[in-house]
């Protein structure tokens, strides 16, 4: 992130001193590409791949266990990850969903917080080359959606806001484009324990 801040400052300085031109943008792009590549290489590290796999398995088991008849000769609830097992008695254990996206079932809060930081940086780097909010960059938008889905699913952990989390949510807001692109209103459905966000656009 520190490196990204430096390159962002360089890009701002170049644009201010030389004005808008395709040459300037190509120059900035050339600086950003190695940064982006290095940033994405993080996901290829063995330890990160392992964490992704564990999270994926945890979610798969959870989803299977939520199906009444799995057709399997065992009770999957016995091997569920313990970090975020929904309870029928405690409605707040049911993960929140972001908009109409399906809820995420997290097994490792630490890892998911970390991944959201990674997504924040992804959005931040994309803003160096395209410093426009609400621009339809698929990767930026996907990162913002996943960041918000994860944040919604973090549950109680979500309430412990750090600078990094606030910054990530702010960047997601920029990716979505603000109120001109999306009018967001909060609606709590009375019949559902799951707090949902209704969106009009």
């Amino acid at each position, binding site marked *: 992130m*520190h*490196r990204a801040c430096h390159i962002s*400052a360089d890009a701002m300085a170049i644009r201010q001193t030389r004005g808008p031109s395709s040459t300037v943008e190509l120059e900035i792009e050339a600086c950003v590409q190695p940064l982006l590549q290095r940033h994405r290489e993080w996901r290829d*590290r*063995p330890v990160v791949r392992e*964490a992704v796999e564990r999270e994926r398995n945890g979610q798969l088991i959870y989803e299977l266990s939520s199906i009444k008849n799995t057709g399997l000769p065992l009770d999957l609830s016995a091997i569920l990850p313990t970090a975020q097992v929904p309870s029928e008695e405690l409605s707040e254990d049911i993960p929140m969903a972001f908009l109409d996206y399906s809820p995420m079932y997290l097994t490792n809060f*630490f*890892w998911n917080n*970390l991944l959201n930081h990674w997504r924040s940086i992804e959005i931040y780097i994309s803003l160096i080359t395209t410093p426009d909010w609400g621009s339809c960059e698929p990767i930026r938008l996907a990162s913002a959606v996943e960041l918000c889905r994860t944040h919604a699913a973090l549950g109680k952990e979500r309430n412990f806001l750090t600078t990094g989390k606030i*910054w990530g949510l702010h960047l997601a807001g920029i990716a979505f484009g603000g109120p001109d692109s999306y009018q967001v209103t909060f609606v709590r459905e009375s019949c559902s324990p799951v707090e949902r966000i209704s969106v009009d656009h």
Partner: protein
Amino acid sequence: MSTAPALIAPLSELPWPTLPDRDPFHELLYDDEANVSESSSNESTPQDASCLFKYSPAPIPDTEIRPNDLPYFNFFLEEMADVLPYANLFPSAIHGLFSGSIHHKALRHSVLSISALIADKKSALGKERALEHLQKSMTLINSSLSAVEVDEGMAISIFMLAYIHVASGEHSTARKHLRGLGMVLDQLQQDHFVRNGGRKSPFAMSPLTMLVWRMAIRMDFIIAIIYARRPVFPLYDPSTLTVLTYQYCPGSRGVPQTMDCILC
């Protein structure tokens, strides 16, 4: 020659948080010891990364520490792991900082200032005590700088001053402190370079100071983002950032692999 009695409570009387016996993230990402051995090396590392001073000098008595300051030490030990960056990942760093403050007057006042600022805000007591300690710490740091006597305790003190100003919303002052911290760190490296016969070493400073350096870099980019400014610290090679954090991995050869995951 008589010396003033120390007003700092003995360590044994202070509440100490329970520390995990091993890296708390080990279970998170490792199944067995196989991966751990991959990251082992023959390079020697300091025995106790949380130690600021290789040779502990005698505690420095301080008549300016009042008995009613003692709760701030407790607060520092109990709460700061949730406040300082990365301290929740390395809880023993807080103990290291506290231990360092016993031997370093400016650091002690910085510790008290940062604790008083946060603790008194929670209890609505105001900033008075925090500012008193801040003033004392800055006076001591200025005296040392005037005498060109820099040490790691001073570097950490400056970091804490920067943090205090960030927490107070004075980001411009915080950036000035970070700039000063950068100069002190450069000087410490240069001093070690000279002492080491002109050879660079990853152990130019203690692992704790390197971790504080890493904390300062994090603070630097957060301020830079908020105020759309260029970071104060220079653009570091990624391997430098790695070294800054890896050195602070007491007793676990497997941590570097884990830290790859932690630090983007």
